[in-house]
């Protein structure tokens, strides 16, 4: 069976969930061979094997941390030459898309970004994409070269499928441009203890209606009562009330949780772009005409300062 390369997103050996989803999708197209780079690369193997990686190609070098993107492209390029895969799958982060694009260009292949599903087809893997603020769904394929496809988080269920996961170090020669962009400082994000926005089953978001950083406590309390992640509209982020990492929408994160609760958010097209594929959508807004109500399964027309605390209390009571 043909091999499919899966680029591993990990932090010091801890594999992030979207990579495990990629392994599920990769198995539909071929045998997953993972590529893990940088510090802790070999530590990823046990997890990757549990979810279906037949092989884990590893390479450690300081360049991956010290310089932007190109060293990773060089490595993935070397892996493609070593394996001759049927496809290459990369998680759809900002960096993932850049790595994938440069790789595709080097190997004379087409690239598809932000797939939300992937299946085998007669002429190679077929990717489903969600476009125009998720109002259309398209099916595309790469018509030249080895398909390079980036996949959004939450595009497949993580399924255990134990495989050998044999660790194999591979050789990488860095290109002349590998050291072009130096990372001179790095400040890791502080963890909030809440679930990761793109991975959470429930997302509770606040917008301009929350009216101040101090009031985001209300949104956080509701989120905590449900074990949810906290999101924000760009209006709330631009006002400085909540960090940009929590922004939902076109220029923030795309989320597709089981439940999305929007409070004080009007539902502009750019916000919808990041949340309209959520399974169940709930909104609280004092304006009955707000476009967010076109999307909801349940909506409350009312003041969020009354509705949200009452909801939080009621949830706590019911949960006991």
């Amino acid at each position: 069976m043909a091999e499919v390369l899966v680029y591993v997103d990990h932090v010091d050996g801890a594999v992030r969930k979207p990579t495990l989803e990629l392994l599920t999708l990769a198995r539909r197209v071929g045998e997953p061979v993972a590529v893990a780079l940088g510090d802790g690369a070999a530590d990823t193997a046990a997890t990757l094997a549990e979810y279906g990686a037949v092989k884990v190609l590893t390479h450690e070098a300081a360049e991956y941390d010290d310089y932007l993107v190109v060293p990773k492209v060089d490595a993935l390029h070397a892996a493609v030459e070593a394996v001759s895969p049927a496809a290459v799958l990369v998680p759809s982060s900002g960096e993932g898309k850049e790595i994938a694009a440069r790789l595709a260009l080097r190997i004379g292949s087409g690239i598809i970004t932000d797939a939300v599903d992937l299946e085998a087809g007669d002429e190679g893997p077929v990717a489903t994409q969600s476009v125009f603020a998720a109002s259309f769904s398209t099916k595309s394929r790469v018509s030249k070269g080895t398909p390079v496809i980036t996949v959004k988080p939450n595009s497949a269920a993580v399924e255990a499928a134990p495989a050998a996961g044999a660790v194999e170090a591979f050789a990488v020669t860095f290109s002349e441009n590998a050291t072009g962009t130096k990372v001179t400082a790095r400040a890791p994000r502080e963890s909030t203890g809440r679930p990761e926005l793109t991975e959470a089953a429930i997302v509770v978001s606040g917008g301009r209606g929350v009216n101040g950083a101090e009031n985001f406590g209300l949104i956080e309390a509701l989120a905590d009562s449900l074990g949810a992640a906290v999101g924000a509209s760009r209006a709330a982020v631009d006002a400085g009330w909540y960090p940009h990492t929590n922004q939902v929408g076109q220029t923030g994160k795309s989320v597709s949780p089981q439940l999305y609760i929007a409070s004080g958010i009007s539902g502009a097209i750019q916000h919808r772009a990041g949340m309209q594929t959520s399974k169940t959508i709930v909104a609280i807004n004092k304006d009955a005409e707000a476009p967010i109500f076109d999307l909801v399964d349940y909506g409350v027309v009312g003041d969020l300062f009354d509705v949200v605390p009452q909801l939080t209390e009621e949830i706590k009571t019911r949960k006991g």
Partner: protein
Amino acid sequence: MSLRIVVTVKYVPDATGDRHFADDLTVDRDDVDGLLSELDEYAVEQALQIAEDADDAEITVLTVGPEDAKDALRKALSMGADKAIHVEDDDLHGTDAMGTSLVLARAIEKAGFDLVISGMASTDGTMGVVPALLAERLGVPQVTLLSEVSVEDGTVTGRRDGDAASETLQASLPAVVSVTDQSGEARYPSFKGIMAAKKKPVESWDLSDLDLEAEEVGLEGAYTVVDSAAERPARTAGTIVKDEGEGGKQLAEFLAGQKFI
């Protein structure tokens, strides 16, 4: 020596309009009003600020697109860019990111550059790959997805806020930069700027000016095919209640019914 900045800008269908696909499954550009992609306004803004801080700089805005794409160039010129290049050719219809980056790279080389500034992504395709592809094609460093950028003594420095960390990046010119919508609000064209823009030069180039063949671009040259496009079914209308004191409790009841509590 003058700092030569090229800003790549895209003319896109208005996101608040009813966007859809043409029969050949390319983005329909006829039925919806177009405009300069909002995300490229941030690129023009940062170019203007970098130019203001430099002793001597010249900003060229560059677009690859149909006749109407001139509107995007005019807008950028009225914000304060110095001149514009419009790459236009019937054979470009249906060009994908690979092809677009090829045309842009050729045009950038022909124009001459020290710094290329792009938006983080186009608002229609939203791929966010063209800047990285330009860096690969031009063989220069990419300093991309920046929420903060500055240029000094031939070095570009910027901050990239990623998922796991916030990074400070540095590279020597020439380089390709892309900026996010966190980089600082874009200015509105002034009346004076709008008037001045009318007199600024806009050059038109076609594929032959860039030594490119029709087969290298367009639908024929594309590396990907779209087989189908379907409109997402509208969500079924939900229940909407007015809060009369019990709105939070009613909502909790709904969530419990859906097994979220």
